[in-house]
């Protein structure tokens, strides 16, 4: 790890603590967040030359407070009205740990769209700069800055406060936080190659933030389940694409490339969670990933157990994507026709919205069943529908392989 990486890690770890301290002192989440962002940028430019200060957290709080009071003074002069900060009550002593959770809950406020929740979480809790977030989501920095500023306005308009809500609201809000972390992970994980290589940073960030949530909510089986799912999925990253960016299906991956440390940690997490906490969808998905991970070769996969887990998952989170995966597991256990019958129940399902995934899974099962012409047709239909270049290439390749076979 380079010195620059160490600075980055330290800054990201301190970011939510510094922001929490400022919001307690001054209120005004939106203005505090801008000030912290400026302090982080100042640290990123000054620390490499001047060295890390003895108390980096205090340094950041001081710099950010100065930026904030300058800004509030300017605003005050502009508006000629009472300084909003002056009216704030004295801060109650709160731990940094609670602040991180309160910030996550605030950034994942239900009034925001998922895209805004993601951007704001990465900036306010993750300590990423607007430029980094913009690069990760492949949009210009000005566009991302506009989205973040709008997200902060929406939070303000919704009357959200910087506090941990009471139960049962907290549990509900925590589900949204977990979903946002899951989306951040997926965004990074599904990146393939080429100009988008920076995106795997999102994987690291999602895992880091989920670890932070687990440290605060260690008795929540779904937090552990989500972290396990991320680790078990990320373990396959090196095997899922070829150097040219082409996708490698699970059954054809070189399993020696899977990261055993992540598999071990993920498996232990999900095993503990399943034994101790009420079972939820992330834990079941992690359990499925763990079963795939324990098979040395694709043909050793315990599909019987995977099928049972998909049945369990369908019972708790009924959605067409789960049914698609369920159909594959069913085909592996009972044969392709059983899987195809289950797929037929999804025909015309508006929730799939003409997604290519139905055609792609059907093509795969038709190929298993030996119905070559229908499989080629379904692969081609899926290839026309997908908006993913590597998936299109993969599906066209499958069709071509069958035609020439």
């Amino acid at each position, binding site marked *: 790890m380079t010195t620059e990486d160490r600075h980055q890690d330290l800054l990201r770890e301190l970011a939510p603590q510094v922001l929490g301290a400022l919001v307690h002192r001054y209120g005004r989440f939106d203005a505090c967040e801008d000030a912290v962002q400026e302090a982080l940028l100042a640290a990123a430019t000054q620390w490499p030359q001047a060295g890390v200060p003895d108390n980096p957290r205090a340094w950041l709080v001081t710099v950010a407070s100065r930026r904030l009071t300058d800004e509030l003074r300017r605003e005050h002069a502009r508006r000629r009205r009472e300084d909003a900060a002056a009216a704030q009550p004295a801060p109650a002593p709160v731990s940094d740990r609670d602040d991180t959770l309160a910030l996550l809950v605030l950034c994942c406020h239900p009034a925001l*769209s*998922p*895209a805004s929740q993601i951007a704001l979480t990465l900036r306010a809790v993750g300590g990423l700069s607007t430029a980094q977030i913009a690069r990760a989501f492949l*949009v*210009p920095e000005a*566009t*991302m800055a*506009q*989205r973040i500023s*709008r997200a902060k306005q929406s939070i303000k308009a919704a009357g959200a406060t910087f506090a941990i809500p009471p139960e049962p609201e907290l549990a509900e809000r925590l589900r949204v936080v977990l979903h946002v972390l899951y989306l951040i992970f997926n*965004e990074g994980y*599904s*990146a*393939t*190659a*080429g*100009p*988008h290589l920076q*995106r795997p940073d999102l994987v690291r960030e999602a895992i880091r933030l989920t670890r932070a949530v687990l440290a605060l909510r260690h008795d929540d089986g779904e937090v552990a389940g989500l972290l396990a799912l991320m680790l078990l999925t990320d373990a396959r990253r090196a095997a*899922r*694409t070829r150097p040219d*960016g082409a*996708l*490698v*299906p*699970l059954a054809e*991956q070189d399993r020696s490339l899977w990261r055993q440390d992540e598999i071990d940690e993920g498996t232990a997490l999900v095993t503990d969670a399943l034994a101790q906490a009420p079972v939820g969808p992330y834990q079941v998905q992690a359990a499925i990933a763990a079963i795939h991970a324990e098979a040395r070769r694709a043909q050793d996969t315990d599909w019987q157990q995977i099928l049972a887990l998909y049945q369990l998952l369908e019972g708790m989170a009924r959605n067409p994507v789960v049914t698609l995966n369920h159909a594959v597991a069913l085909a592996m256990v009972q044969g392709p026709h059983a899987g195809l019958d289950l797929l037929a129940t999804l025909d015309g399902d508006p929730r799939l*919205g003409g997604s290519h995934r139905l055609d*792609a*899974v059907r093509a*795969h099962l038709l190929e298993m069943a030996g119905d070559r012409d229908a499989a080629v047709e379904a692969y081609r239909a899926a290839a026309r529908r*997908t*908006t*993913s*270049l*590597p*998936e*299109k290439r*993969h599906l066209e390749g499958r069709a071509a392989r069958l035609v020439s076979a």
Partner: protein
Amino acid sequence: MKYMLLIYQNPANWEALSEGERDAVMNDATAIVNELTESGELIAGDGLADSSQTKTVRVRDGVPAITDGPFIEAKEHLVGYCLLECETLERATEIAVRWPDARHWAVELRPLMIASGEEM
């Protein structure tokens, strides 16, 4: 999801519009662009010069042939584009419906391909 909004016009019809109608198209487009910039949904957007300014380039056996004028002879020409990022297809369609050129000619809305993918 990112979408490309492709804006078409028929130059003969455009010239036949009254000045007031032409102003309305321009002003409405500017108003939507401002709104989309403010909402963070506009990634890029530009108008294109008249189709008579087009160069069409073909390379055959390594030899480039460059001709004046568009590749496809049509009454309606591409006159501009907006690159959008919207939460849903419904939202992108709503923007397309409000685009002023759709009242006189047509706009096309096409999803962009992405470099990400899931292994199957």
